[in-house]
């Protein structure tokens, strides 16, 4: 069996580990555009922060490929998938035949058109290890940084370079930070925390044009800067499979086992969209845990098993300068709210089920809430008051606890 995997990040690693659960012999070829050992992309901000280094941020040990019988084609780009002839053409003119193919091509940073952007000499995206290295090099001397985008990538970047930059200004068109994961109140709390660390925010405004060394905003002010980071968002990298004729909306359409509409072609991770188990809607859930689990499910399926589990959902654990936040699911329905000091909790529930949560500050044991959402546990089967107070197994019935703590997990 010849397996080919395009991509070398979480979904690809999940696929390798999924294949090897069932097939010890088949040969796996990994095509990696980046010339690095598999590394954790979200760790690039921790790299700049000094919390990790290039060795420790490797997603799997140095002997991963060797131990798993993988050939890594490093620094090679797949340029075409021929779904009829079952081969992948590479940028060096060679072609790889496959029996089973996984596209784990990830996302690409989306840089919106902005007037004068090409004239900005020092501009960066913040997505890959190469991006992080380049930004670190640009900040060898302390300089003024403008970050366009107050989402997860922009703010993790801000945290990462806080000690390196002489100033950081973050501009976003949205009226609050982290609009994709936080409500207004939670966003304000995190914003105050980041402002106290020295990050300046300009919200509800956007860059009209870049001229000279400044960004002129639509609202009228001019922000002088030395280094620009664009972090507006990412888009699923779907071009290979789209051109090959696979069904693609925003992301590649897959079933729960990672199968695309093309025979023997699978896809996993940020390039796909999957069915959100909370809402039942198909959407892009570009998150590392989902990517790994989709990759693993695809790998098991590629090796002849049934590996798919319907559990994709929005989940974020993230921290900024010591303040931790966790969010999950969707923010629909009735709300239980609890606030004290710098700690903030909102639970969203409807139809006797927990649908989502926002936790800021105190995030201990949040996985108990996550499990309630994922398992669609009827809320009337547990002590609602206790579960609202804090995540605890005490809220379950004695019988349920006996199952949880006494049976095989």
């Amino acid at each position, binding site marked *: 069996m010849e397996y080919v995997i395009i991509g070398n990040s979480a979904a690809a690693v999940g696929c390798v580990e999924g294949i090897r659960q069932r097939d010890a012999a088949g040969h796996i070829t990994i095509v990696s555009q980046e010339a690095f050992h598999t590394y954790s992309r979200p760790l690039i901000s921790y790299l700049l922060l000094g*919390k990790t280094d290039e060795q420790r941020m490797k997603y799997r040990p140095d002997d991963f490929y060797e131990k798993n019988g993988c050939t890594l084609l490093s620094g090679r780009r797949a340029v075409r998938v021929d779904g009829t002839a079952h081969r992948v053409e590479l940028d060096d003119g060679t072609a790889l035949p496959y029996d089973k193919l996984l596209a784990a091509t990830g996302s690409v940073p989306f840089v919106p058109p902005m007037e004068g952007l090409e004239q900005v000499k020092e501009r960066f995206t913040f997505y890959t290890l190469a991006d992080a290295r380049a930004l670190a090099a640009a900040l060898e001397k302390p300089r003024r940084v403008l970050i366009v985008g107050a989402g997860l990538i922009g703010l993790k970047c801000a945290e990462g370079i806080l000690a390196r930059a002489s100033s950081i200004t973050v501009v976003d068109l949205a009226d609050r930070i982290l609009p994709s994961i936080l409500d207004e109140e939670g966003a304000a709390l995190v914003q105050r925390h980041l402002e106290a660390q020295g990050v300046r925010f300009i919200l509800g405004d956007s860059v009209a044009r870049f001229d000279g060394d400044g960004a002129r905003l639509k609202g009228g002010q001019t922000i002088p800067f030395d280094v620009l980071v664009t972090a507006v968002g990412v888009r699923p990298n779907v071009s290979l499979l789209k051109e090959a004729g696979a069904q693609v909306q925003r992301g590649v359409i897959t079933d729960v086992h990672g199968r695309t509409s093309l025979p023997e072609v699978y896809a996993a991770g940020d390039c796909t969209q999957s069915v959100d188990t909370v809402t039942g809607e198909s959407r892009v859930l570009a998150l590392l845990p989902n990517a790994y689990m989709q990759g693993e499910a695809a790998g098991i399926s590629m090796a002849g098993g049934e590996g798919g589990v319907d559990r994709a959902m929005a989940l974020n654990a993230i921290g900024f300068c010591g303040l931790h936040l966790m969010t999950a699911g969707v923010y629909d329905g009735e709300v239980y709210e609890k606030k004290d000091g710098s700690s903030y909790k909102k639970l969203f529930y409807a139809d006797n089920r927990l649908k989502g949560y926002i936790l800021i500050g105190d995030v201990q044991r949040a996985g108990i809430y996550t499990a309630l959402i994922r398992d669609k546990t009827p809320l009337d089967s547990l002590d609602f008051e206790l579960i609202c107070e804090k995540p605890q197994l005490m809220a379950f019935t004695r019988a349920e606890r006996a199952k949880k*703590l006494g049976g095989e997990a």
Partner: protein
Amino acid sequence: MKRVYVNEKWCLACHLCEYYCAFANSGETDMVKALKDVAISPRIRIEQQGDISFAVSCRHCTEPLCVKACISGALTQTDGVIAIDRDKCVGCYTCILSCPYGAVMPSPQGAVQKCELCVNNAQGAPACVGGCPNRAIVFEER
């Protein structure tokens, strides 16, 4: 594989399991030195409410969501035992977000901590089990 199981009917809420855990993972050989005047951070924790109490620690799941979700590769499962490589962990807490039992927790030393069945300390067998005076915590195959 052998796992730690708790039987809440036998739990006395004495919290000795927490102290044995803290001692086992302290690196100290003297229990008094390890625990006297120390705010302990055990990897097994008692939940208590009225006359109900029970200990919770890592279940070493066969389908470990914490390991699959770990963004750094710091959590691994070897021969069934889930362990944390503190050098690799950046403290993002995705594992805390993922664990259905609430059995992974922030470590006072940074990173996260969790029960490793005492395989990575000097005990060799779960100290909480040995220290439980009422056999409310056992280490066995089921």
